[in-house]
């Protein structure tokens, strides 16, 4: 405090001095804010997209479950409707409600069809709201009448009285809209896509005659165990009584791994973002060391200095966070479609049209944005405040200090890296542990980066002495001389590029494994299936007449028949693939364990089943174990003959011979055919014939040649990873801004130095050369160091994260082009970032730059 100056006035002057500085450097301020905002935006976007999809699913489950506390569920072909009559009429369980469920497509919309009995209390009053007068009567008495969620109807431009078509498993049905469902006090997401019909209409259009999808029960709190037992005693062996929430949980579980990965992507983005925040805040403080030292010499106390800078950081943090949240929300609505599409492709059907704005992601963003900025500003501020004013006035002191700091930092980095390695060595299935070690490894590598930069620079100086030109040496020396600025920038770029390398290698390896698997597994020439949605209990079946006709085609030499169902037993959903192999076909499945000569005969005889690798991983199963599945005759244990490779499902599945399936399930539906055709005949000829047969049978079918189905599968694969591409791009953008900020700060600060160079006869072109070489070298160093980091990252992703998320093992495939592309990316990002600062440098008249002081 200046003697005699009133406290408030003094603080105002300090604050003015601080803000004046910021205002004099608008670019730096803007880039700082943009950098932090981008980091925050990514977190918010990923969080919101993720949460919206989850929330939409939960809301629609809640809405559909209504007040139900329990559900009676059946096997692959649902439940006999007589079960409901027994419960309701004979046991007098009146708080019960039957449901027939299916997913259909109408235009662009995926509709969730539920057939219910509007006459039951639960159906009428609590689940779907009050019905308008006459609607209930029409629903019951007029076949093909339906109620549709109002927001969905609006999008489809449908109004009461309109007719529309719905495609269910390849068959079109015409429905008439006799009413709209309003969300009332719930969010629209609760009813989005919901299509209600009377249970009779639902049974008829889905072909689920005599069957129900499930029965809802409302049993009072603390329900008498005896009632549960009585209900169970009255259920046929294929039915099970389960708590209502366990079903939605089981379904949510299915997409857990996917969502965890998405979160990890968001975390990666955050780490990059945090680097940026630290980077820019450090610059903002370091650049003012001179000013701060002067203030200190004028008598400003450390505490005051501290407060001023932190309040400044707070302001920057708040502005950037608000901006970041806004951008994040915009970005999120784009992401949510990608997330939803992936979920619909792979897991269950969910209709998300709106981004759900919830408090948690925003709160998280505020904490990370504001808190992160403060923490990032804290260390340099502390350093600035603690340094004696005289020392602070000298630049060389700072750099000398930085060099000691860099050495210590690399020791910490090494320690983190080793801890990360040790964590990997722990045999565990915990995904969180995998992520922890991943971050430790990457963080460790990042911390070591500045030291490596220093070593590289001094190495090049030693080697280059006499060989390199003055400008080049000047440029390279500059990197290590200003390590406090360049170090973090290079580290941030390195991290972003390493992430790109790691994720690319992981995806490439994954894709290659899937491709190899497709080659091996898809042996048939043509695949024919009934279109279905989601992976819930599907009603989709091929027309029996069509199957007979296709088998009778002269070109067809062999047919394999597949049927995939989801078995709900003991609170778990298990995919079961019942497959009748074509006689001629060599099974294309690659066994992970087990002798094919023993396994396949046992499989064909129906003595044992196979489980796919992810299922074996998740449930801890091995060949020789048994898996319990609820069949039509009750719970049965099936011996496992082998574990096989399969990338088709991340929850995994059970492969069962159709003959064995038929022994335990009354379901006779076939959902897909694999056709083997005579050699020399082009698949297209047969495809046309099959299409004609399908048209005759009145069923729309998916028919693809072997080649097409591989392409299609890979397309789905690429679509799944589309979101990761977006996130990687964003991370690079964040890093780019980081390097731009660093260069701006560096070059602006070196204005005087450059001016001296210019005054001593260095041409603007040579200045540009110095800057270009310097930034190019920084980019190159970042790119080079990104390679080992990226490789480590990729191996952890492939062998730890992927394995623990999905249970898939894969060969890692390292593409050299990818690595060189990463270096080019790093160099060009750095060069691109140098354009503006170098343009400015060369434009400034040396006299002007020198006159500044």
């Amino acid at each position, binding site marked *: 405090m200046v003697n005699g100056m009133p406290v408030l006035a003094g603080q105002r002057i300090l604050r003015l001095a601080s803000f004046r500085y910021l205002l004099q450097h608008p670019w730096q301020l803007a880039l700082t804010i943009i950098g932090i905002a981008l980091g925050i935006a990514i977190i918010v976007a990923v969080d919101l997209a993720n949460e919206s999809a989850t929330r939409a699913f939960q809301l629609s489950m809640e809405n559909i479950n209504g007040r139900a506390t329990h559900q009676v569920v059946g096997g692959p072909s649902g439940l006999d*409707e*007589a079960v*409901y*009559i027994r419960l*309701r*009429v*004979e*046991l*007098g369980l*009146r708080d019960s409600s039957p449901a027939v469920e299916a997913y259909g497509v109408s235009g662009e919309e995926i509709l969730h069809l539920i057939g219910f*009995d509007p*006459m*039951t209390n639960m159906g*009428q009053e609590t689940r779907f709201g*009050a*019905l*308008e*007068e*006459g*609607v*209930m*009567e029409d629903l*019951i*008495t*007029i*076949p093909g009448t339906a109620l549709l969620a109002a927001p969905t109807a609006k999008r489809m431009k449908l109004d009461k009285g309109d007719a529309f078509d719905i495609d269910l498993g390849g068959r079109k049905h015409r429905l008439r809209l006799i009413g709209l469902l309003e969300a009332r006090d719930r969010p629209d997401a609760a009813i989005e896509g919901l299509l209600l019909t*009377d*249970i*009779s*209409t639902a*049974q*008829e259009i889905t072909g689920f*005659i*005599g069957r129900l999808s499930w029965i809802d029960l409302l049993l009072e709190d603390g329900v008498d165990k005896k009632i549960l037992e009585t209900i169970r005693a009255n259920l046929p062996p294929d039915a099970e009584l389960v708590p209502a929430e366990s079903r939605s949980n089981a379904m949510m579980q299915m997409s857990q791994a996917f969502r965890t990965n998405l979160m990890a992507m968001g975390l990666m983005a955050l780490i990059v973002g945090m680097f940026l925040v630290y980077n820019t805040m450090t610059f903002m403080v370091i650049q003012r060391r001179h000013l701060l030292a002067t203030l200190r010499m004028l008598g400003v106390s450390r505490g005051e200095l501290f407060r001023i800078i932190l309040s400044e950081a707070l302001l920057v943090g708040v502005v950037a966070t608000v901006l970041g949240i806004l951008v994040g929300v915009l970005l999120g609505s784009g992401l949510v479609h990608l997330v939803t599409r992936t979920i619909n492709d792979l897991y269950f059907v969910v209709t998300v049209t709106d981004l759900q704005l919830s408090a948690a992601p925003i709160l998280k963003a505020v904490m990370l944005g504001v808190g992160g900025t403060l923490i990032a500003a804290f260390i340099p501020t502390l350093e600035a405040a603690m340094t004696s004013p005289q020392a602070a006035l000298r630049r060389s002191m700072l750099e000398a200090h930085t060099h000691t700091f860099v050495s210590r930092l690399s020791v910490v980095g090494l320690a983190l890296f080793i801890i990360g390695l040790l964590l990997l060595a722990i045999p565990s299935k915990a995904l969180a542990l995998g992520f922890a070690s991943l971050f430790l490894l990457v963080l460790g590598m990042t911390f070591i980066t500045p030291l490596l930069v220093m070593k590289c620079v001094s190495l090049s100086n030693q080697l280059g002495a006499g060989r390199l030109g003055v400008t080049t040496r000047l440029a390279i020396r500059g990197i290590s001389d200003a390590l406090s600025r360049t170090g973090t920038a290079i580290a941030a770029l390195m991290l972003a590029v390493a992430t790109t390398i790691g994720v690319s290698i992981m995806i490439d390896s994954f894709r290659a494994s899937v491709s190899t698997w497709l080659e091996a597994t898809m042996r048939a020439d043509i695949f024919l299936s009934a279109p279905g949605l989601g992976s819930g209990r599907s009603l989709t079946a091929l027309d029996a007449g069509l199957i007979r006709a296709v088998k009778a085609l002269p070109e067809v030499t062999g047919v394999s028949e597949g049927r995939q169902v989801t078995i709900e037993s003991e609170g778990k959903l298990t995919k079961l693939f019942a497959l009748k192999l074509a006689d001629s076909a060599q099974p294309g499945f690659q066994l992970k364990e087990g002798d094919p000569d023993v396994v396949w005969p046992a499989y064909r005889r129906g003595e044992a089943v196979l489980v796919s690798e992810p299922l074996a991983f998740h449930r801890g199963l091995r060949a020789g174990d048994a898996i319990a599945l609820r069949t039509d005759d009750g719970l049965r244990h099936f011996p496992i003959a082998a574990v096989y490779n399969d990338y088709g499902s991340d929850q995994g599945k059970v492969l069962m011979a159709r003959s064995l399936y038929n022994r335990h399930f009354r379901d006779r539906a076939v959902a897909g055919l694999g056709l083997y055709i005579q050699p020399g005949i082009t698949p297209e000829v047969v495809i046309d014939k099959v299409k004609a047969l399908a048209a005759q049978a009145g069923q729309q079918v998916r028919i693809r040649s072997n080649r097409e189905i591989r392409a299609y599968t890979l397309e789905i694969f690429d679509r799944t990873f589309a979101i990761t591409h977006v996130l990687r791009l964003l991370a690079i953008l964040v890093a780019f801004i980081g390097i731009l900020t660093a260069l701006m700060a560096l070059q602006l600060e070196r204005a005087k130095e450059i001016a001296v160079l210019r005054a001593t006869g260095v041409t603007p072109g040579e200045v540009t050369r110095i800057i270009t070489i310097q930034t190019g070298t920084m980019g190159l160093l970042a790119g080079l160091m990104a390679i080992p980091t990226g490789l480590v990252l990729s191996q952890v992703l492939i062998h730890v994260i992927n394995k623990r998320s999905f249970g898939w093992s894969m060969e890692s495939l390292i593409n050299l082009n990818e690595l060189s592309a990463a270096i080019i990316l790093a160099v060009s990002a750095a060069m691109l970032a140098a354009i503006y600062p170098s343009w400015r440098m060369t434009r400034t008249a040396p006299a002007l730059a020198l006159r500044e002081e």
Partner: protein
Amino acid sequence: MVLALWSIPGCSRSPDAQADADRALSSFLGQGDSTPEGFARAETAREFRFPEDHGAHPDYRTEWWYFTGNLATDQGRHFGYQLVLFRFALAPGRVERSSAWATKQVYMAHLALTDVESQEFRFHERFARNAAGLAGVEASPFRVWLEDWRVEAVDGEDETWTLQAGESDMAISLTLSPLKPVVLQGDRGLSRKGPEPGNASYYYSLPRIATKGVITLGDEHYPVAGLSWLDREWSTSALSEEQAGWDWFSLQLNNGYDLMYYQLRHKDGRVEPFSSGTLIDPEGGTTALRREDVFLEALDTWESPLGGLYPVAWRMEIPLAGLEVEIQSMLKNQELDTSVRYWEGAVEVKGKQGDEEVSGHGYLEMTGYAR
């Protein structure tokens, strides 16, 4: 008993309670703005055949199986009960669809119990479609049910039925054996409700049914015995626009006589000339009663807390039978606040037939009073 519902009132609740009640009532009364197309109508007398006619007549819009009775324990604790199952055709025509749930017919049931000693009246209402085994009727062996409320023939016997119905707070389990043969009401079973042809129903009763069983209230079981009455009626349209409601009596006297009489009231207060009834002697012989044969006078009223003034005590005089009785409700509040609000309850009868003192019990139903 003239309940001619053709749609299910009250299933769709509107904010305007009175408009709702009015609409419900007009539905209840079988009053529509148009003559329903596609349904059969009760126009001429027909031949009744049993047990077939105990079953459903789905070509008509409305039909019911109406059980009421007065029962008592050995100690004289008195109960009244009502179990009625209504069948409604929501639309004309039969259903030919593949789903077992497809139907155009639905059932509604009301269950009520009057506990005179504790002055308590309980009632419950249910709906179910006539499909998939949820509700329905079978003529032989006789069975009518809505979920677990049911009346059905005891194994192999067409003449003895069991009646079972309950809710969380009450249950009745009774055995019913008719003491008199079927009585065809009106003109050989054709019961006209007004001058318009077709505004009529087919109507028969089992007027005196020996009843034994158990009534359960909470944890208490009461062995009871007494008499029940069954009304069976089906029609498509019964009442005209001008008719407001009715007062219906079924009385069982201790001298073996039974009596049914309904009076239809017009909105202007006039009594419909087509009001009618039947006096049944101890042997089952019948005497038709016309409007001019019966003098009815309300003695006392009870105001429903939900709105409406019900005449809950009556004097009835039938000179041609020498009958003069007072009819008193055993509990004033026997109003059912179901999707249609009406009063239906146990009554006590005291008076003279000629010189002979008579007493007995019965049921009184009053509609069109709720406001």
